[in-house]
């Protein structure tokens, strides 16, 4: 607890960075280092089923060094996943209504933590997309006439892009299964939540990889003239979106703000369960100033869902009445001007 601008979020951010080796706030690692300093180190001890594990992460102008059990890891992918966290901040309530980028980022961040292969495919896809867009620009400007290389890039794009689509569909199905009971409960049995993957590729009933590939390829072929005149790739997973439907209606358009928040909350809570299924352990939950954004009934659901199961860090200016009732023996820390004291 603490007033604004005292360092509460900073503390949560450091836990988040320790887990994922990057920040949710900035993509520039330099922003994580204190002004006028050359480097910074975050270290922590993770208590897991199998025993305690020291993690440490060092950022300097030479890049980052990640250590697991004091041993330096050559690949970050060997480091990420040792500690799983889920962050819930007020921005996340925008998940349903905000720009499609927010939802794609959500899938990439959360799913990537659980599935390293997805992380690889989505990174490859971004690289190929960049090359394909650059080549379309060349064609557009008449710098080249060679379409054979465009065909090569199209084939690569379709191959990795289809893997991304397939994996996202499967992830959303699982997320939906986990979110539905939670949503039904929060809405007092009144509402049923469904998640729809809205692809820019016309998928209709296509669910296996070969069907997605051929449909993706066909759609790109139809868009070729448009792509050439615009100098960019017209469709693919980078243009896809997720829709949240409640009782057969799209909540982003037809739902109230309360319904949108309920949907966002259900999905976030479902993630905790998914991660538990996937890794066998509950993640660490970080609630950044989010309780004050929720009404008493939603606060109750959130707190009951994590009670006695999930280690949770909550930041707030003060504890609400609901929180006081539901959190058993909370350990309270006061944050003031970057200093942390135990109550």
């Amino acid at each position, binding site marked *: 607890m603490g007033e604004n601008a005292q360092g509460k979020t900073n503390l949560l951010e450091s836990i988040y960075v320790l887990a994922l080796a990057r920040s949710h706030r900035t993509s520039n690692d330099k922003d994580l280092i204190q002004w006028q300093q050359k480097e910074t180190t975050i270290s922590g001890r993770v208590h897991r089923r199998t025993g305690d594990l020291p993690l440490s992460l060092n950022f300097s102008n030479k890049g980052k060094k990640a250590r697991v059990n004091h041993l330096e890891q050559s690949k970050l992918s060997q480091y990420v996943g040792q500690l799983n966290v889920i962050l819930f901040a007020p921005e996340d309530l925008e998940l349903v209504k905000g720009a499609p980028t927010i939802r794609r980022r959500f899938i990439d961040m959360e799913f990537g933590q659980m599935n390293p292969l997805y992380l690889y495919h989505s990174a490859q896809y971004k690289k190929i997309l960049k*090359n394909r867009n650059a080549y379309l620009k*060349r064609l557009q400007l008449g*710098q080249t006439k060679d379409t*054979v290389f465009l065909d090569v890039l199209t084939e690569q794009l379709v191959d990795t892009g289809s893997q991304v689509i397939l994996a996202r569909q499967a992830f959303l199905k699982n997320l939906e299964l986990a979110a539905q009971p939670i949503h039904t409960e929060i809405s007092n049995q009144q509402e049923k939540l469904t998640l729809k993957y809205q692809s820019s590729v016309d998928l209709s009933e296509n669910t296996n990889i070969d069907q997605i590939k051929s449909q993706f390829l066909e759609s790109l072929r139809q868009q070729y003239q448009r792509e050439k005149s615009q100098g960019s790739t017209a469709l693919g997973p980078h243009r896809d979106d997720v829709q949240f439907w409640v009782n057969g209606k799209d909540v982003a358009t037809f739902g109230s703000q309360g319904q949108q928040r309920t949907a966002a909350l259900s999905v976030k809570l479902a993630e905790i369960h998914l991660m538990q299924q996937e890794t066998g352990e509950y993640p660490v939950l970080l609630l950044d100033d989010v309780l004050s954004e929720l009404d008493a009934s939603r606060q109750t659901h959130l707190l009951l869902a994590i009670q006695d199961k999930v280690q949770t860090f909550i930041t707030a200016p003060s504890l609400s009445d609901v929180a006081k009732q539901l959190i058993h023996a909370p350990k309270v820390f006061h944050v003031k001007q970057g200093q942390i004291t135990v109550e």
Partner: protein
Amino acid sequence: MQYPEPIAKLIDNYTKLPGIGPKTATRLAFYTLGMDNEDVESFSKSLISAKKDLTFCDTCGMITEKDMNPCIICRDKSRNQGTVFVVENSRDVMAMENTRDYHGLYHVLNGVISPSAGTGPEDINLPSLVRRLSEHEEIKEVIVGTNANAEGEATAMYLARLLKPAGIKVTRLAHGLSVGSDIDYADELTLIKAVQGRTEL
């Protein structure tokens, strides 16, 4: 306090090398001061000579001495003239040669197709490969040994599309487990590639 100009310039020049920052450059510069005169002279001469006396082979694109063009590999008639191994740079040729197992010819692209970095198919040593193949009908197979990343893969696929219609066999290096390694140490992707590229016993 500033360093005297000659050493400041030396430090500055060392920092132009890859992987060398100001600290290492300073250490190298002071080490250079302590070296024998003749060593320093031969060092500086070889720097200049590396730029001045080397060129790319007109036939295959590998680095070679100016008075040895075509290069020593292209001149060697005892090599198998029917196979060309395509690589990204001259260092890859050395790596292959060290195997002492390949006895065909090479073609060095001196780069890889990467539109986002401004490199198109015509910007690397690729048109000369097409010309070379049309002039030498005895070349029956092209082995593509570009790196196993998105750009290396795209370059390989492009080559295949370009050359196959001409009836040339185009092959790609295999992906998979490295020799002498344990399966449980391999990362997931390598394992997936290894399963995809499995061979029948």
